[in-house]
């Protein structure tokens, strides 16, 4: 049986470099572009058809998704600050969701199964939260490292713990999405390979599981996009409201 992790390998399709940096286009980049095009295309389809007061099917779905994300942003970030961060959060949600779903198509690539990609987003969000925190509260932002109600003697202990906890946030954010996508696709690959290699008498069983796991993966694609987005809202909300 082929190595189940083999399909996570990337091969350059077009070699490109920018100021000495390799920016070659590979299957992952193409999948990312397809996700981008799908998201933008769906939104533009609604906009081009005219955004109506009484919405059509596609407009309803997109509006529901937007309202869902908006409620989430308002809940964790607050109604006053929400409009400022809403476009970023909603773009993040649709981009990750589209990348996850594109990966479900046989023969395509799941770009969110690359730790470096999820790490880039998580790292960017982490830096952004620090920037928001310092620009909003100045040095008082460092009080986020001291949870409220902690006795003064415990502060020297709590600060390193909170610091590690803060650093763990982007790591957990990145690893969670990457691990879920990788594990799901690996299991699917293994089960499908088993059903292909075994005889029909036995092969129907792993194939059946492939179908079930595929449905589960579809749900995971939505859930992971939701978790990534909601945690981003929580982190931004934390640095805005401190405690």
């Amino acid at each position, binding site marked *: 049986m082929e190595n189940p992790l083999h399909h*996570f390998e*990337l091969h*350059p399709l077009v070699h490109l470099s920018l100021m000495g*940096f*390799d920016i070659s286009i*590979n299957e992952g980049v193409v999948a990312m572009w397809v996700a*981008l095009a799908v998201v933008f295309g769906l*939104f533009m389809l609604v*906009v081009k058809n005219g955004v109506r*007061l009484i919405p059509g099917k596609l407009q309803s779905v997109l509006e529901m998704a937007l309202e869902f994300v908006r409620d989430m942003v308002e809940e964790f970030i607050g109604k006053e600050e929400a409009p400022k961060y809403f476009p970023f959060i909603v773009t993040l949600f649709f981009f990750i969701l589209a990348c996850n779903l594109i990966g479900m198509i046989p023969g395509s690539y799941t770009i969110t199964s690359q730790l470096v990609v999820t790490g880039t987003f998580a790292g960017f969000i982490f830096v952004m939260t620090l920037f928001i925190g310092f620009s909003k509260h100045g040095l008082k932002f460092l009080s986020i490292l001291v949870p409220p109600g902690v006795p003064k003697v415990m502060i020297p202990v709590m600060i390193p713990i909170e610091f590690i906890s803060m650093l763990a946030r982007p790591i957990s954010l990145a690893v969670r999405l990457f691990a879920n996508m990788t594990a799901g696709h690996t299991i699917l690959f293994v089960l499908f390979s088993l059903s292909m290699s075994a005889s029909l008498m036995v092969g129907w069983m792993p194939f059946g599981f492939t179908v079930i796991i595929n449905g589960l993966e579809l749900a995971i694609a939505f859930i992971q996009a939701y978790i990534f987005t909601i945690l981003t809202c929580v982190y931004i909300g934390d640095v805005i409201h401190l405690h």
Partner: protein
Amino acid sequence: MPQFEQIEVFQSLIFWSVVSFALLFFLLKKYAFPPILQALEDRENKIRTEIGDAEKLKQEAQELKANLEAELKSTHEKAKTIVQLATSEAKKIQEKTLDETRAKNKQMQNEMEREIEISRNKLMGEVRGFTAALTIASTEKFLKKTMDDADRKRLTEESIEEVIKEMQQRQMN
């Protein structure tokens, strides 16, 4: 795992991730979000306005209903009063008519009684005259003698009294 081993693709993936996301963010923020969010806001405002209008209309309808009910009640009371007044008026008219009729009847009865009395007196006068003449004539014949004026008068009076008594007795029977 290829995700950790293929270090050479990291630069490319980081670069294109940032560029792709930034591009999508820019495109959606510029072209897609404004009209859709505007539509959502318009709809929210419209719904809010319409709910407000509906509440206002409901309140107006309730006020109107209360007014109409009060008016209906007042009209009912007025109608009831009018009916009572009409009934009382009719009763009064009826009583008045009855009294008038009674008075008229009484008057007619009195007139009749008077007329009867007059007729009776007249008749009694005639009877008295006739009886007197008859009594005198028959007595003269019976006694075969002529009576003087005083006997005639006494005899006449007695005869008249007897006749009248007889007549009254008959009338009573």
